[in-house]
């Protein structure tokens, strides 16, 4: 290899007083950071391989391990930071496109944290959700202009197809292939228990999972992997994926080594072949083309399933959303630039797309102005980190949110940003059977259920605090939001007042 500029990113510190040479770390690290030297009876570490996934730290029975930033410094420079220098070293060595995982990590403003929620005081009572009814159920799908009833009070209006969610949260599209079968099972079982939906991503749906169909959104993306009539009819709704927040304008690439027997059968591609999702849908070049796809999917499913269209939050997302509504979609899904991914070109991940908060506000505003907001549900995603983010999203106009990163964190993800290596030590983003095993769906689905149930409780608390007893009453109610640390332009786009106003 000759000269290699690569230096460790992390340092593994072993407390020898605590290390009992049990070698659990050796056996558990798929990156082979730890090794046992039987001659000296010590466990050694190779820092350069460490991605800081915490697997060894968590499993170490004596908590003898600490991982911290490798203390090697470059001369301080606010412009030529160490990561910039290291990336250049890497590219000058490999000549390749830099790949990264998860969402945009750059310190762009997080608007969720610059918006504050209201609460009732004196003039209208707050509600205690533990004592009084509190509704967080949402119906996803288009709503008619008006409702007609016959003389007996029976509904005459034909309702568009709906998906009922017991709470305004769904699990984001993560394909079988990018994540493991066990991760999928955990998501599917949790969604079923929670009365919400998970999303297949563009990986098709293994027939073993059809039983979770009522809680499944099946995705149709540019590679059309695993799409067939049974698949489309298996889910509760269909989602056409145009773009993804982590890599707008870019397709997907599942390396052949992750396409094993089961993934191959599910995706309907040969074993070991690269699964390449093109950047565009080759049959969609206009809103009219999109409409054709929406309606062919509706036709295939007898107009019984809502069709979602998912786009990345980009500059003119509002106009595109308007087009999507007019193309006949039942829900618009917008994914912000912090949305996660298994692998994306680093430059795209870090520089393309816009924050979901601004895109959401703009889209909701535009659809209302065009008086077509009722025709769709608006679902957003792209780094929903907690229940407060959800409440704020709903106040900005969202019907529901997708959570992806938060869900995988509940499954054990420690955000080491190494999904693309396929060596996920937590059994999430891997197809290696030995690693997949580490994610026991029996255990992990409960963690997802716990997380989402906890968030739902918190949502109810916050709603109650505002004196609202149904999440539907909060939707688009921007009076419940105030900005902090925002400039005039940002306040305008978000259409919220400043704190104190």
């Amino acid at each position, binding site marked *: 290899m000759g000269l290699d500029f690569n230096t460790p990113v992390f340092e593994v510190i072993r407390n020898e*007083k*605590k290390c*009992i*040479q*049990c*070698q*659990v770390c050796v*056996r*558990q690290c798929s990156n082979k950071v730890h090794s046992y030297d039987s001659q000296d009876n010590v466990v050694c570490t190779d820092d350069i391989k460490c991605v800081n996934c915490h697997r060894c730290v968590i*499993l170490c*029975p*004596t908590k003898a391990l600490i991982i911290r930033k490798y203390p090697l410094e470059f001369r301080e420079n606010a412009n030529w930071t160490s990561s910039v220098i290291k990336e250049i070293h890497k590219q000058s060595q490999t000549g390749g496109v830099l790949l990264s995982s998860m969402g945009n990590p750059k310190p762009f403003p997080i608007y969720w944290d610059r918006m504050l929620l209201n609460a009732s005081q004196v003039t209208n009572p707050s509600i205690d959700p533990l004592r009084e009814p509190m509704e967080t159920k949402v119906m996803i799908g288009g709503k008619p202009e008006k409702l007609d009833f016959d003389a007996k009070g029976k509904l005459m209006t034909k309702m568009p197809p709906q998906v009922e969610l017991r709470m305004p949260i769904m699990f984001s599209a993560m394909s079988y292939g990018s994540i493991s079968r066990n991760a999928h099972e955990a998501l599917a079982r949790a969604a079923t228990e929670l009365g919400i939906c998970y999303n297949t991503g563009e990986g098709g749906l293994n027939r073993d999972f059809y039983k979770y169909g009522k809680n499944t959104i099946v995705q149709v993306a540019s590679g059309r992997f695993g799409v067939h009539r049974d698949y489309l009819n298996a889910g509760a709704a269909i989602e056409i994926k145009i773009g993804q927040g982590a890599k707008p304008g870019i397709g997907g690439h599942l390396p052949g080594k992750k396409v*094993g027997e089961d993934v191959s059968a599910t995706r309907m591609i040969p074993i070991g072949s690269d699964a390449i999702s093109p950047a565009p849908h080759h049959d969609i070049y206009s809103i009219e083309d999109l409409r054709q796809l929406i309606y062919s999917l509706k036709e295939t499913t007898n107009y019984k399933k809502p069709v979602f269209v998912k786009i990345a939050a980009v500059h003119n997302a509002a106009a595109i959303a308007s087009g999507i509504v007019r193309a006949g979609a039942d829900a618009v899904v917008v994914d912000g630039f912090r949305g996660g991914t298994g692998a994306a070109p680093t430059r795209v991940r870090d520089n393309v797309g816009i924050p979901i908060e601004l895109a959401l506000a703009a889209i909701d505003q535009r659809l209302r102005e065009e008086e077509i907001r009722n025709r769709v549900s608006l679902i957003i995603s792209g780094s929903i980190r907690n229940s407060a983010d959800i409440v704020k999203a709903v106040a900005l106009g969202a019907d529901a949110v997708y959570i992806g990163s938060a869900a995988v964190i509940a499954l054990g993800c420690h955000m080491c940003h190494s999904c693309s290596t396929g060596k996920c030590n937590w059994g999430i983003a891997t197809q*290696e*059977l*030995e690693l997949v*095993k*580490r994610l*026991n769906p*029996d*255990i992990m689905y409960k963690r997802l259920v716990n997380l989402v149930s906890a968030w739902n409780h918190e949502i109810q608390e916050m709603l109650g605090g505002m004196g609202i007893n149904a999440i539907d009453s909060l939707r688009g109610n921007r009076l419940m939001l105030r900005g902090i640390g925002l400039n005039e332009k940002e306040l305008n786009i978000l259409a919220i007042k400043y704190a104190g106003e």
Partner: protein
Amino acid sequence: MKKIYAFESKCLGCGLCEVYCKTAHSKSKDIIKAHKQENITSAIVIEEILQPKAVSYFALQCRHCSSPKCVKACISGAMYKDEKGIVRNDKEKCVSCLSCVLVCPFGAIKKSINGKTVSKCDLCIDYGKSLCIEYCPNEAIKLLNENEAEALK
């Protein structure tokens, strides 16, 4: 009686069960002391299964047979089946002749490192709870009675 069953599809072969087995059977009941100061052999055998695509594992423990060969082979009377049905080894009486190792069809009895006795699962009867199960990170071993085991088979 309840005994420990291993789930091959769940076992990671991480070895934590062995760590806690040693701890539960130590004098100090302290992980670090048990390993650094006491010479203890775990009563668990981690079986490795090489498959074409992956290695899988399972943690094997004494099956507490209804008619234990080890008890019958034991020359000193150290190995016995107690009133609960647990096959136990009286370390005071054991002379480590390894007759039990010779006849256990599961290979679930180990010669202990100190050479003075043998090591086998006693369901942590003296400790009060089976630590291996408590600390298994993947619920790959479970303490089950006959009916529960039948249901999960």
